[in-house]
């Protein structure tokens, strides 16, 4: 090593190493593996995957006497949740039922945990300062965090969808799919639509995910950021049900969540789907910029 013979007040020893564009991607890969190797992440995915199984078993038991869901106490009683009544005829509806059941609470809560912990968790464990002096670069680290959280949105949605499809295929017959609009399409077409529904559900979570990452840049406590994000999910859901506040409803991130069902019409009813994606994009832009502004100017004292 040539460093050894340089004297005390020597000129710079090691040559400045250039940063290669491809090498900078290592952080993104590291972020993904670190996120998905954590027990907490796997536990969240496990819980999400268990929901369709529970729904499937419940429907199977309830209809084992040959009846259908929601008929128990005679016609007048409240109807079963969306898609539940079709599950017995076609297992693929378990995918839609499970997504409809998890989207309001379970999925956003899981995202809230992962997104809220993204920056604040690193801050509270102190690893943030070492990543930054590595030097990860603040913008690059923030982008890597966003990428990992978005990947979790997708994987979490797929966990529900795939588990729903597997359980549905196991417990119920599969076949041609009768859409909400009454048209019948082939099972293949139904699968494609199921994939589309999963994609839309994953994109529906972009708003809360970005909001969570922004909240995560505000504090050095991972728990506080997670709790705040999950609290916001619940608050938004409650506000969305208060009719007097209908003026703000179109701006609440969960407002158009259930519009994914419109993909199950022929022809597809795009209005609310597009509104949903626009709203999620708006949240991503606003809170993404806020997270960038906050994180790049923040004093890292933890």
């Amino acid at each position, binding site marked *: 090593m040539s460093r050894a013979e340089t004297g*005390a*007040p020597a000129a710079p020893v090691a040559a400045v190493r250039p*940063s290669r564009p491809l090498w900078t991607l290592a952080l993104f*890969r*590291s972020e993904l593996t670190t996120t998905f190797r*954590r*027990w907490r992440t796997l536990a969240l995915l496990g819980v999400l995957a268990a929901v369709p199984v529970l729904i499937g078993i419940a429907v199977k038991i309830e209809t084992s006497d040959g009846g259908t869901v929601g008929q128990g106490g005679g016609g007048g009683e409240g109807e079963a949740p969306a898609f539940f009544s079709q599950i017995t005829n076609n297992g693929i509806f378990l995918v839609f039922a499970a997504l409809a059941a998890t989207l309001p609470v379970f999925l956003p809560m899981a995202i809230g945990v992962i997104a809220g912990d993204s920056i604040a968790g690193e801050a509270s464990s102190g*690893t943030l300062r070492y990543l930054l002096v590595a030097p990860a670069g603040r913008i690059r680290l923030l982008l890597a965090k966003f990428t990992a959280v978005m990947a979790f949105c997708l994987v979490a949605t797929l966990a529900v969808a795939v588990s729903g499809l597997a359980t549905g295929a196991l417990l119920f017959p599969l076949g041609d799919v009768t859409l909400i609009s009454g048209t019948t399409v082939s099972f293949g077409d139904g699968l494609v639509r199921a994939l589309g529904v999963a994609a839309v559900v994953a994109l529906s979570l972009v708003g809360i995910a970005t909001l969570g990452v922004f909240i995560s840049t505000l504090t050095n406590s991972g728990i506080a950021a997670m709790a705040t994000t999950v609290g916001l999910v619940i608050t938004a859901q409650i506000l969305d049900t208060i009719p007097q506040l209908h003026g703000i409803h179109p701006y609440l991130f969960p407002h158009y969540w259930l519009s994914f069902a419109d993909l199950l019409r022929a022809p597809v009813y795009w209005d609310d789907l597009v509104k949903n994606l626009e709203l999620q994009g708006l949240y991503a832009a606003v809170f993404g910029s806020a997270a960038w502004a906050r994180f790049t100017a923040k*004093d890292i004292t933890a």
Partner: protein
Amino acid sequence: MEETGAAVETRGLTKRYRGGQLAVAGLDLTVPRGSVFGFLGPNGSGKTTTIRMLMGLIEPTSGAARLLGEPMPRAARSVLPRVGALIEGPALYSHLTGRDNLLRYDAADPTADPRTRPARVASALDRVGLGAAAGKKARAYSLGMKQRLGLAAALLQPRELLVLDEPTNGLDPQGMREIRALVRELAGEGTTVFLSSHLLDEIEQVCTHAAVMAQGKLITQGTVAELAASSRGRLSVTTPDPVDAVRVLKEHGVTDLVTLDERVVGELPQTPLELADLNAALVREGVRVRAFGTERASLEDAFVALTGEGFDVAG
């Protein structure tokens, strides 16, 4: 700020936290290249804030800092890959193994070659003596092992500058010796080492230069020899007649006299004094002298004299 050959240079570096608390006030620090620089100061004196500003983690309120000749935090992307740091203790992913922790930190460096990554991680682990524990989860590590892993993270690349904040914290005496040996070895390779510690004898053993901070201000900086010399040496006389000895020494201008059984210790006066004459004077007055001599001033004496504060030397 003019570029000099210094590894670290700050001019008027100041940090006022929100709420008005002045953590660092007008710091002018110069760390020469190739030095092992001891950064001393009581708790809360602004050492850590200074280190965080140097590393680009905290934005200075005013003033400027240069690391390896380049301005921080502007040049962070090109400078920091050449700097290894241990800041306020190690921080690890407890669910990852020691090796995976280092792989992650190395992946965060955009100048780190992924092809040599496993080899560099393995050699960094060996260098701090963690080779055998590399596959253990970090949550199972003892404090000393975590400290070693933090050091290993600072050694993933050949560095020009190492910033080590309390590197021997939590280590047993054997571990401390190993770290001191490692610091000397790195310094021998030409790496500048910036070492903050509250263990004064540690600084004295390994450092060539030192600076002392108190209440956010730099009190002094220079070579360790200069600093220790700035505090006058102490006179020590062993005698069965301590009362007479104290009287005679006082007459000759020795101050701060303390008697411990048969031993009298005092500060020599600022004006040079021929010690032989002093000894002769004692004997002339009938004081029976068993031992007579000066004790070299330690850095601790210099430190206490400068900051006026006690210091937990035993750690």
